[in-house]
């Protein structure tokens, strides 16, 4: 091999490496863009995948030396909607009570940095809760590129422009589809799939589930018989097939994004409020406060079969998260970790009442039912609290949200942003 040949080969190899490097950079940029697009905020109920999970890294934070730092806190009107965040703006549902029988529900936008209100738009009259649990909207807004979709406590699905809250379209579930208001109000959060807003409507004439064109609100499809409940649909990709999962009454439904029923499964309990939890690649975890408490099904060839059921996790209104083979959630009023394989209790932590939790990186972000914000390890080994702070005061039943290093919490009277810092 001559020196020239060696040089040519070296040059060739360098060129190949150069192109390979360039290709890799461009490809990774695309992937990065796709991921960025997918996780550009806490844009709907339970976050991007409706799993209550943020993949933002917290590894740089030494929680033994830091506490969540208050960014802002403000008084708001009653409502249970989670806080959604994207592109520097915080969106949630609030309400305003005029007198004992009059009031309104609003979709409102606030500055992510300061909490200052940017706009609010009226979507419906207020839902007054007869039992006194709390008034206002229950469902969480769903944010699209251009629109925001909300469901009021009285069952009005509304589309507004994201930029200024302008009205686009609205459907009244009770008047148009014969839905019956569930006790404690409509609570199912909108889901966007393939340009359609997917809703649990609970209407008559096989209109339990419906899809609406997100641009003009036209009905795209309707399906199944079932009541309006408090549960929200989940989008899951199982065996390469995107499917929308509804826990409705005593039936677990899987529908194709086009509305056809893929499979159904008869659940051992009804009335689940906690959203189904997807355990990749093909399992679903469901829990309710009724016996048996929880079950896990495996979906193969469009058929769901029971893998496990037990009493070690009973969710009331707060949903679980899945992390590395374990389920973390509120067993009635105690934070608990159970094995997703066996249901075995790994640990239990009391004292947070009927709170809620999400997962960020490998940390549990817990909000107690009295507004205490806690960071703990998401580990089956033991409950280990990293830090805690009294974030908001009063009954706090809405799960926290997380985006861009900040935790967002709210209850019926106030809303706050806390930065997790080193």
């Amino acid at each position, binding site marked *: 091999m001559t020196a020239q040949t060696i040089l040519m080969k070296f040059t060739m190899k360098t060129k190949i490496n150069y192109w390979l490097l360039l290709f890799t950079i461009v490809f990774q940029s695309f992937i990065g863009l796709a991921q960025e697009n997918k996780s550009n905020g806490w844009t709907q109920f339970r976050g991007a995948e409706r799993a209550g999970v943020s993949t933002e890294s917290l590894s740089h934070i030494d929680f033994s030396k830091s506490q969540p730092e208050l960014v802002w806190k403000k008084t708001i009107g009653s409502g249970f909607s989670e806080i959604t965040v994207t592109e520097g703006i915080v969106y949630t549902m609030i309400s305003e009570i005029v007198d004992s029988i009059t009031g309104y529900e609003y979709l409102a936008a606030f500055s992510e940095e300061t909490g200052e209100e940017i706009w609010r738009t009226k979507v419906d009259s207020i839902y007054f809760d007869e039992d006194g649990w709390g008034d206002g909207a229950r469902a969480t807004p769903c944010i699209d590129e251009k629109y925001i979709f909300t469901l009021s406590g009285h069952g009005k699905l509304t589309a507004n422009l994201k930029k200024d809250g302008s009205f686009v379209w609205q459907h009244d579930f009770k008047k148009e589809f014969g839905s019956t208001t569930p006790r404690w109000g409509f609570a199912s959060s909108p889901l966007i799939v393939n340009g359609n807003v997917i809703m649990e409507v609970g209407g008559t004439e096989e209109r339990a589930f419906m899809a609406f064109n997100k641009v003009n609100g036209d009905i795209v499809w309707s399906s199944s018989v079932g009541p309006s409940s408090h549960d929200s649909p989940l989008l899951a990709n199982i065996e390469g097939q995107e499917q929308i999962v509804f826990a409705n009454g005593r039936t677990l439904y899987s529908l194709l994004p086009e509305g056809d029923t893929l499979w159904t499964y008869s659940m051992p309990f009804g009335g689940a409020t906690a959203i189904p939890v997807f355990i990749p690649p093909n399992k679903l975890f469901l829990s309710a*406060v009724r016996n048996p408490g929880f079950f896990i099904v495996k979906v193969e060839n469009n058929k769901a079969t029971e893998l496990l059921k037990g009493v070690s996790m009973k969710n009331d209104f707060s949903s679980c998260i899945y992390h590395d083979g374990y389920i973390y959630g509120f067993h009635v009023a105690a934070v608990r970790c159970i094995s997703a394989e066996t249901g075995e209790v790994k640990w239990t932590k009391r004292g947070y009442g*009927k709170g809620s939790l999400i997962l960020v990186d490998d940390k549990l972000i817990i909000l107690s039912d009295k507004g205490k914000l806690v960071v703990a390890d998401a580990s089956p080994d033991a409950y280990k609290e990293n830090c805690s702070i009294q974030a908001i005061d009063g009954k706090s039943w809405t799960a926290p949200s997380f985006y861009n290093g900040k935790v967002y919490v709210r209850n019926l009277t106030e809303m706050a942003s806390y930065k997790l810092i080193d």
Partner: protein
Amino acid sequence: MRLLKYQIFIFINFFCISSFINAQNVDDIIAKHIKAHGGTEAWENIQSMKVSGKFTAFSIEEDFVAIKTNKGEYYSELYLGKNPVKEAFNGKTGWTIDPWMEILYPRDLKKTEINVFYQKAELFTPFYKYKERGFEVQLLDNEEVDGMEMIVLKLKRNNGMEEKWYLDPDTYLEYKCESNWVDFTYGVPAETFFDDFRTINKVVLPYYIERTFWQRNRVLQIENIEFNVDIDETIFEMPRSEQMQWLSFMEGNWDVKVDVMTRRGTWYTFDSTSSKIYWDATNMLCEKISYDLTMVQNLIINYTYNATADKFVMTRFNGLASEMQLFDGEYTDSSYIFQNINVDYGDTSLAKTYSQINIYNIDKDSFDVEISVSQDKGETWLPRQRLYYIRKQR
């Protein structure tokens, strides 16, 4: 045969020894449990406790106060969510005002609730003097709770209700109790957890008690405990409804003068008699009176208040014709006016003569009653009798 006798002998001995060991263990464990709570001597000196703190129900934290006595009495004022609740137990029966049941006045406790009040009324542990109280205790195998090995005792109260207690083997203090509780008056199983044990006045008590039953969660965070407080025993008695307390002026023994309206339109004293008015139930006054008119009127009159209808109610039994009449009434212009215009028996053949009974001129030791009739459904009332009540001197 000899072998059989030998086997029986061994079996009996084994059974007796096992029972003895078990009993030894139970008594030993309970002795350590009582000692962990401060010991018998310290508790012998405690007749009552006033506990105050914060109680959380439906995720809403509110003030809480409870009084307990060593006679098994219990009284508490608390909030369930935003609704104020009062409850009392005299050791056998009790009452509550619980707006969650949509009843705003005191009501008697149900049997399922009474079992709960036996638990609430414990000064510190049901194992204290358990034999004297007719309780039975059995030692079960150790169990793991929240990753910790626990001593397990099964308690059977003298009312037959069973509880399972989990004691920390290091401290002998209670960690958890499984018992029967109530949710909206219906029996449900409950788990109670005890924490934050503190020493006060030489005794040890949990300052954090969390109970879960069905989907409910209740947390009591005690802030202060006072011992041997002065107690007004009337707090354990079921209070009368506010409206019936208004009528309490009628209670007592009375001299009664009976006047009737003559045909000439003047009043004429027809008889003098006596009347006794007493509480026949918490919310029912009963009057027994007899006087002469054309015939002897033997009357038994009951007064109560119907909260649902927001009306006073009177029943008036006349022994002359075995006739019972029902009246509803209200308080207006310093008078209680009862009438039977609104009482319809559905029999249109009956002659419609209505009565009105007006209690007025109410004073501490006197009041008057006027009885009128109407034949035009209350358009006009014609006075017929007046009864003047003067309290008998003792």
